[in-house]
């Protein structure tokens, strides 16, 4: 799998000084503080950070479900102020498919509602994307008869079929077992190889961030602030045993857990 660097021509998504807050009747929680970053066309942009640092909140804000109290988020230069089908979300929960629709109908639904494609095309598109995630046999099955991993694949297929400007995935593989997780990561990468979509991907696994991502944004513990943005495009399954991989993993580990950056390949054994 060779992955050329994404064309860094122009930012697709720009996040400028974004502060996000939750107001509950008793508290005001600042989830992220003055976050800046930009996602380019074709990026596999990973947001990595400790639990509770505001990764999901950030993704929800990009999705348009929350508006920043400070700063702004723009997509193709246009300010984001509401949810829209140009930014399709894949949620962390398995139960995001509509239980009253079959796999096929679930995939078809966003295309039907948004009328983005001609009616005749939608059926062919749905079929082809279901085939890509390997669920053709389960096309006419209702979601309650699928395993967790299969539901996740349907959710990804559904989002992908609409060809959004950017695909937003919130820890899509976090709840999967290690084996399924590994194969889903590989599937996502090979789909990306075919289609070259732009994806924003939240995780709190360092390894997953390096494997899946082409760029990794590291956030500080709560409230989330940007700690670093790293280029991990060259690191993938083929060099998972290479020293560079270990070094990157160690570097991110140190960024996350607040130790002073050390010389890669120092004496102590790396805890990858």
């Amino acid at each position, binding site marked *: 799998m060779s992955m050329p660097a994404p064309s860094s021509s122009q930012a697709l998504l720009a996040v400028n000084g974004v502060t996000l807050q939750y107001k509950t009747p008793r508290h005001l929680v600042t989830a992220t503080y003055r976050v800046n970053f930009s996602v380019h066309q074709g990026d596999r942009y990973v947001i990595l950070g400790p639990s509770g640092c505001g990764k999901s909140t950030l993704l929800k804000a990009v*999705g348009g*479900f929350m508006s920043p109290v400070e700063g702004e988020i723009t997509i193709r230069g246009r300010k984001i102020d509401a*949810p*829209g*089908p140009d*930014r*399709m*979300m894949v*949620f962390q*929960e398995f*139960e*995001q498919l*509509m*239980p*009253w629709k079959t796999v096929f109908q679930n995939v078809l*639904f*966003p295309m039907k*509602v*948004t009328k983005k494609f001609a009616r005749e095309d939608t059926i062919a598109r749905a079929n082809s994307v279901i085939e890509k995630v390997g669920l053709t046999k389960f096309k006419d099955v*209702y*979601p*309650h*008869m699928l395993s967790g991993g299969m539901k996740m694949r349907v959710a990804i297929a559904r989002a992908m079929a*609409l060809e959004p400007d950017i695909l937003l995935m919130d820890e899509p593989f976090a709840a999967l077992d290690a084996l399924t997780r590994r194969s889903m990561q590989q599937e996502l990468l090979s789909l990306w190889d075919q289609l070259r979509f732009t994806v924003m991907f939240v995780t709190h696994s360092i390894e997953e961030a390096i494997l899946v991502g082409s760029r990794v944004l590291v956030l500080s513990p709560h409230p989330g602030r940007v700690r670093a943005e790293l280029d991990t495009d060259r690191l993938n399954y083929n060099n998972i045993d290479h020293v560079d991989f270990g070094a990157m993993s160690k570097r991110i580990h140190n960024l996350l857990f607040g130790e002073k950056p050390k010389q890669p390949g120092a004496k102590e054994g790396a805890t990858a």
Partner: protein
Amino acid sequence: MQNTNTSARPEFEIEPVDSGSIGEVERPLSLFERIATNETVQRFAILVVLILVWELYARWLNNSLLFPTFTDTIGTFFRDIKNGVLINRTITSMRTLVIGYAFGLAIAAVFTTFAVASGLGTRILSTLTAMFNPLPAIALLPLALIWFGLGTPSLVFVIIHSVLWAVALNTLSGFRAVPETLRMGGRNVGLKGARYVGLILIPAAFPSILAGLKIGWAFAWRTLVAAELVFGVSSRSGGIGWYIFEARNELDTATVFSGLLTVILIGLFVESVIFRAIEARTVNLWGMQT
């Protein structure tokens, strides 16, 4: 590393056997298996046992004024069906019931629409349901008689009251329980307003809505029969309640039983045929309820 004696056990690998030789991996159930587990069949068997007990007890008691036999009751039942009395009474009751039920549902739909649209609407509806839900519909009958006089409008009024709050309450709590991810999924593709309610909220809350419809139906049917018993006396074309009331006045217990039987049969039919069919095509199929 501890060195335990587990290493003394040999390792092994086995090629999986061809799944064809396992035999029954998957097969459709046989006709008998399907019949024995069929809910309608089981219900029918229960019914037969109940009828047997009834017949034996009534024969033993041997007092047709207190407790007529099943055969007497069924005889009267078929006699009155043949001469059209029971059919007419049932049609009269059903007509009132359907009107009341339909109005009740329509008003419940309006209320819940307001309730989902705003927080104020939600609070208005929950206050109203908290106030009126515990109020027995029959208790409103005297008031209905003053407002609407004797006849169908009064009946429709009390039926609306018995349907409305149960359906509205269930629908609203169903809407509230729709998972956040499904809501966000709907908004993500740009659904708003009526389309959002129709395409996301209603199907997602369908198990609760259906439960509300069932409770509403049972309340309405009960209220109607009771109300007819109270004042069917002076209306010319009485319903099933009036049929029972009349028979009681003439101490014709077999006819009273035949009227009760009709009430039960209609109840069973609606519950186990109509609602079962709706459930099988919706919530059971979707795995939202088993």
